[in-house]
C-alpha cells in the first residue's frame, strides 16, 4: 500500500515532466547584423607568416620560440597559449600537392564555447566577436572541451592562467584599425570585412575561377555558420576544418538539456512529488505505530 503511494507520486512527477514538451530547445542564434570576420583564401597564401608575427605583436604576446631552431625563430607548431593565429602547411601524402592553412578563432555564429561558459566570460560581444572577460572566468576549461575547432588555449604553465584565443583584434577595431593579420598580409590572402561582404566576395571568386577552388565557402553554414570564412583548392577536412554539418556544434547537448529543464517544471514537480511521498510515508508509519 505504502509503496504504491510512492510509485503513484513518482508516476505523477514523471507525467508532469513528460508534459513539458520537448522540441522548443533554445533556437540557434542568427548572424548578428554587425558581424565582421575574416576571409582566408588558401590559394593565395604564400606561407610567409607575417600574420603570425603581426598577431603576436598586436596582442602583446611572448613569441613562441620553442618549436624549431633552438630559440632563434618564432616557430610555433600549433595554436597555443602564446599563439592566437598560425599558418601551417598541408602536404598531400599521395601526390605531393600542398596548401597553407591559417587558423585562429572562427567566431562561430552560435559558439559552443559561449554555450559552455558558466558566467558568460566568453560571449559574443560587439560585431559578434567572441571575447573573454577575465573576472568571469574560473578556468574550468569547458570551452576547450566544447570548441569543435580546438581553438581556446589555456596558460597551463602559469599560476594565474588566462584563456587565450583570437578576439579579432577587437582592441584595434576600437581604434579604427583592422585586425593585424589582415593588415600585414602581402597577398591579400586574408582580408577583413563585414561577414556579408566577405561572403559575396568569396562567391564572386568561386564564380570567376571555379576550377581554382573546392566549390564551397567553409563557414557559410558549417557548424551553424562562422564569421571567419575559408576558400581552398584542397578539401577543407584535410586542412583541419572538421565536417560539422549545418547545425551548431552544441546543438544536441542543448536540446537534451533544454528538454529536461524546460521552464524548470520537471525539477519542481519532482521535488513536490518527493516531499509528498515522504509526508505520506511518515503519516502512514505514525499511524502504524499508534495502532
Amino acid at each position, binding site marked *: 500500500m*505504502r*509503496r504504491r503511494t*510512492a510509485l503513484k507520486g*513518482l508516476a505523477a512527477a514523471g507525467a508532469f515532466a513528460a508534459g513539458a514538451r520537448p522540441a522548443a530547445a*533554445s533556437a540557434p542564434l542568427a548572424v548578428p547584423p554587425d558581424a565582421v570576420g575574416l576571409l582566408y583564401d588558401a590559394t593565395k597564401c604564400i606561407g610567409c607568416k607575417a600574420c603570425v608575427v603581426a598577431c603576436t605583436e598586436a596582442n602583446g604576446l611572448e613569441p613562441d620560440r620553442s618549436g624549431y631552431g633552438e630559440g632563434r625563430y618564432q616557430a610555433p607548431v*600549433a*595554436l597555443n*597559449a602564446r599563439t592566437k593565429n598560425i599558418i601551417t602547411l598541408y602536404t598531400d601524402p599521395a601526390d605531393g600537392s600542398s596548401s597553407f592553412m591559417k587558423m585562429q578563432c572562427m567566431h562561430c555564429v552560435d559558439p*559552443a564555447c*559561449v*554555450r*559552455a*561558459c*558558466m*558566467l*558568460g566570460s566568453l560571449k559574443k560581444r560587439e560585431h559578434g566577436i567572441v571575447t573573454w572577460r*577575465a*573576472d*568571469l*572566468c*574560473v*578556468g*574550468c*576549461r*569547458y570551452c*576547450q*572541451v*566544447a570548441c*569543435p575547432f*580546438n581553438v581556446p588555449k*589555456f*596558460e*597551463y*604553465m*602559469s*599560476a*594565474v*592562467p588566462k584563456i587565450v584565443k583570437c578576439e579579432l583584434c577587437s582592441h584595434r577595431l576600437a581604434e579604427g584599425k583592422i585586425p593585424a593579420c589582415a593588415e600585414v598580409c602581402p597577398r591579400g590572402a586574408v582580408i577583413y570585412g563585414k561577414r556579408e561582404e566577405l561572403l559575396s566576395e568569396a562567391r564572386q571568386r568561386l564564380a570567376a575561377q571555379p576550377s581554382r577552388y573546392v566549390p564551397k565557402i567553409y563557414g557559410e553554414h558549417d557548424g551553424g555558420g562562422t564569421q571567419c570564412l575559408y576558400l581552398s583548392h584542397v578539401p577543407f577536412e584535410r586542412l583541419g576544418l*572538421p565536417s*560539422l554539418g549545418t547545425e551548431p*556544434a*552544441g546543438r*544536441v*547537448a*542543448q*536540446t*537534451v*538539456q533544454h528538454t*529536461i*529543464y524546460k521552464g524548470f517544471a520537471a*525539477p519542481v514537480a*519532482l*521535488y513536490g512529488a*518527493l*516531499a509528498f*511521498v*515522504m*509526508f505520506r*510515508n511518515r503519516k502512514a*508509519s505514525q499511524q502504524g505505530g499508534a495502532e
Partner: protein
Amino acid sequence: MSVQPQPVGGSLMTRSFRALFAIAAVGFVVIFYRFAFGIGAIAAINDGYPWGIWIALDVVTGTALACGGYAVAILVYVLNRGQYHPLVRSALLTSALGYTMAIVAVTVDIGRFWNLWRVPVYFWQWNLDSILLEVALCVAVYTVVLWIEMSPAFFDRWRRSSNPRLRALATTGLPFVERNLVWIVALGMLLPTMHQSSLGAVVLLAGQRLHPLWNTPLLPLLFLVSCLGMGYAAVILESTLASALFHRRFETSMLAGLAGVVLPVQLGFVALRLADIALRGQIGALFAFDLRATLALLEIFLMLAPVALLWSPAARQRRSTLFRAALLLVGAGALYRVDTYLVAFNPGAHWRYFPSLGEMFSSFGMIALEIMAYIVIVKQFPILSGAGTARREEVAV
C-alpha cells in the same frame, strides 16, 4: 534489535592513521606546487585534453561513489523500506565527505580558483545554457544539504559539550533540522537526480569529438542509473570495511538487501546501454577490436559480473561475495565514467594524455584526507550503528 548510532571511540593516532597522514602530506606538497607554479608544472592535462583524472576520477567518479546517501535515501524515504534506516547516517557521511572532496578537487583543477565564489553569487551573470553551471550550482547546494542532513549526528554530541556556544547551536539546530527534515531530504534526492544526470550531458557538448560508442542523448539517463549502482556499492564497501576495522557487528542482512536492489539497476543499465548502441547503429563499432571497443566491452562485462555473483539469495548473504561484487560495481561505474570523459574524447590525432605522477599523488592525497576525516568523525560522533564490542552486541541482540 536496532541499535542507536554510537561513536566508535578509541585513540586517533593509530598506525594506519599516520600512514594516511603521510600520503595526504605528499599529496598536498604536490598541490602546493601546483598553486605556486601552475597546473602544467605537475599535471599532464593540456590544450587537447583539458580535463584529466582530477575531473574524470576525483569529481565525476568521486561524486558517483558519494551517491550512497542518495541511493539509500531513495530506498528508505521514497520506497519506504525503513529496515535500511540504520545505513542512512553512515551513507550520508561518506556522501558529504565525497562531495566535499570533489569541491576540493575542482578547486585544484580549475585555473582561476579565486573567481570560483562568483559562480553561486553572480546570479545576474548566470549563463542558463551552461550545463556545467547547473552541475556546479547543484553540487554546491547539495554539499550544504548533505552536511545539514548529517548535522543531527554532530548536534547529538555538542548538546553535551562544555562549550556553551556549541551547546546553543545544538539546541537550536536540532529541532530546526527535525522540523524541516522532509523538505531537506527531498532536496537531498532532487539535487543528485539533477546533477548526476547533467554530468552525462556535460560531455555531450564535445559533439563529434566524442566517440560514437559513448556519444548519445541518453548520457544523462545512463549517468543517473550508473550512480545508483555505484552508490549502493559504496555503502556495501563502507559498511563492511567499517565493521571489520572497528570491530563492529556486520550489517550483512541489510547489505544483502541492497545487493538485491543492485540487480535490476545493473541489468537496466546494460539493457539501456546495449539498446542505445544498437538503435544508433553502432554495434559494429563495439566489435572493432580497437582500444575503445575493448574498453566498452570491458565496461559491460564489469557491469554484469556483479549481477552473476549476486544472483542467488544465498550468495548475497556471504560477506566476501558482497564485498567482491561491490568492488566490481565500483570498477564498472568508474570505468564507464572515465571512458566517457577521457577515452571517448578525441581532440585530434596529435594530442596525448596519460595522468602524471603529480596528478596521481595529489589525488591520493585528497582521498587520504577524506578517509582521515571519516575516521575522525566516526570515532568522535554517533554515526555507525551496531554495537562496538562482542559483549555489547550480546546486550543489543
